[in-house]
């Protein structure tokens, strides 16, 4: 074995999560490796988005939620009693299904997170803006109009702006929840392209908007069904030779 064993970035350790009566996630155990793209996929209501949102504690916003098991980031319990949620969210960025630029200019959008964290240095903010926009493959289209309103951008550009906005915090993990669901195929290709570029610096977890997209981007793939994680394998293996019959049924289009 010459290959070094991969670093575990995020670990689900027997995670069960529920809001209301029925558990939304049932006993999930799963490792996400650093500098890979991992996809969480499955039919609607399978728990994939819930699992994603647990990682940056966005589900804290839901009322009456209960969690058991442990969720670790670099071996640290994300839900530890004294954990700093804001600090966690700066380490774990998130991009949502619908691009939602904040009111204000392109520049203000990109620098929003760092400014919240207290960064005031203009040179540093300018540098972060440029680097994040380059990483999100948007720089060339907006570099001459950074002070235009963000809403003037097209849908695809807005979504890359949202990616840049997350990247400006220099997170370690980037969560993407169906980031291309509202985009045309060309914009989708651009976003996917930028994901491949980002992989060397970040750990990426994505809920894809189609099985095809899952197969295109996945280094690792985890199949979710009715709140359970059915199997998790390297992407090429899972999409060609799934272990579980249910996974095979789903990816061959027998249901879902």
């Amino acid at each position, binding site marked *: 074995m010459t290959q070094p064993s991969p670093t575990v970035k995020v670990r689900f350790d027997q995670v069960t999560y529920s809001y209301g009566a029925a558990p939304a996630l049932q006993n999930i155990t799963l490792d996400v490796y650093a500098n890979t793209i991992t996809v969480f996929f499955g039919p609607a209501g399978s728990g994939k988005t819930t699992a994603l949102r647990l990682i940056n504690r966005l589900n804290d916003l839901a009322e009456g939620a209960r969690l058991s098991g442990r969720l670790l980031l670099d071996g640290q319990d994300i839900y530890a009693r004294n954990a700093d949620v804001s600090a966690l*969210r700066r380490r774990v960025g998130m991009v949502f299904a619908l691009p939602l630029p904040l009111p204000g200019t392109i520049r203000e959008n990109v620098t929003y997170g760092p400014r919240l964290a207290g960064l005031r240095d203009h040179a540093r903010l300018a540098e972060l803006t440029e680097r994040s926009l380059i990483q999100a493959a948007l720089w060339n289209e907006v570099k001459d109009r950074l002070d235009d309103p963000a809403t003037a951008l097209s849908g695809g550009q807005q979504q890359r702006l949202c990616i840049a906005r997350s990247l400006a915090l220099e997170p370690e993990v980037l969560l993407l929840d169906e980031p291309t669901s509202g985009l045309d195929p060309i914009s989708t290709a651009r976003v996917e392209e930028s994901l491949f570029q980002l992989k060397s610096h970040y750990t990426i977890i994505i809920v894809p908007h189609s099985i095809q997209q899952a197969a295109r981007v996945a280094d690792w793939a985890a199949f979710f069904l009715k709140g359970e994680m059915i199997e998790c394998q390297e992407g090429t293996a899972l999409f060609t030779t799934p272990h579980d019959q249910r996974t095979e049924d789903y990816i061959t289009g027998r249901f879902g």
Partner: protein
Amino acid sequence: MRRPLVNRHTQQRIGFALLALAALIVVIPIILVVLVIIARGIGAINWEFLTQAPREGMKAGGIFPAIVGTLLLMAGTALAAIPVGIGGAIYLSEYARDSWLTRAIRLAIINLAGIPSVVYGLFGLGMFVLFLRLGTSIIAGSLTLAIMTIPIIISSTEEALRAVPTEFRTVNASLGGTRWQGIRNIVLPQSLPGIITGVILGLLRAAGETAPILFTVAAFFLPRLPSSLFDQTMALPYHLYVISTQVPGMPEKVQYGTALVLLALVLSLNIVATIVRSYFRRRRQW
């Protein structure tokens, strides 16, 4: 099958005409009120009327102390009602979880809005004038008007806050922002026009009320200006009531002139509220 007497299109035209009539009936009284008051009151308006104290049993001179009194009461009401109203609305809409307490608070707000204004006046008398020993004073009157205004400000502010999409708050949180950072940076700026409109409309209602100030601040006749917050003052609505019902032989011109000043004050603020709202609505990005 019998043919109807009139065909469907004619029926529809008649229907629309009736609906238009209903809409017109709403507008006509407002226009008439304004026109009549302007027509009968404009003759009274001159520099003396606006800047002098009343003389000769209020039949001559001006209404300056009443104008100043109303402006002072509005300022006092604003000072007391705006922080409490907006603060309460932010708490209810952004922080409070749904519990019996918040449900009780909301129920109280709805019911407060339905209480007759004379009841507020009596409450102000008991609470501020007597119990807190503020006496009949600008401060007691302002506080009474504020109690009446706060529910209006809370409801309209809450509505304005809720109109800001939740997703903005989620994005703020996902970028490491605290709840308060999201409120200060995104939610409040976005809802400001709605909040301002609600505040102005609430203060307008306070400006025009007679009953709440009747026992708490208003002076029947006080030609000098108040010198402190603990003084009584004249105020436009009460002055109008006094000269319309309590003083025999009052020239009609003076009554309508006073009404016109009050109306102008209220309408001009109303127009400001409308302009604020439409200006921001055009700039809104979502």
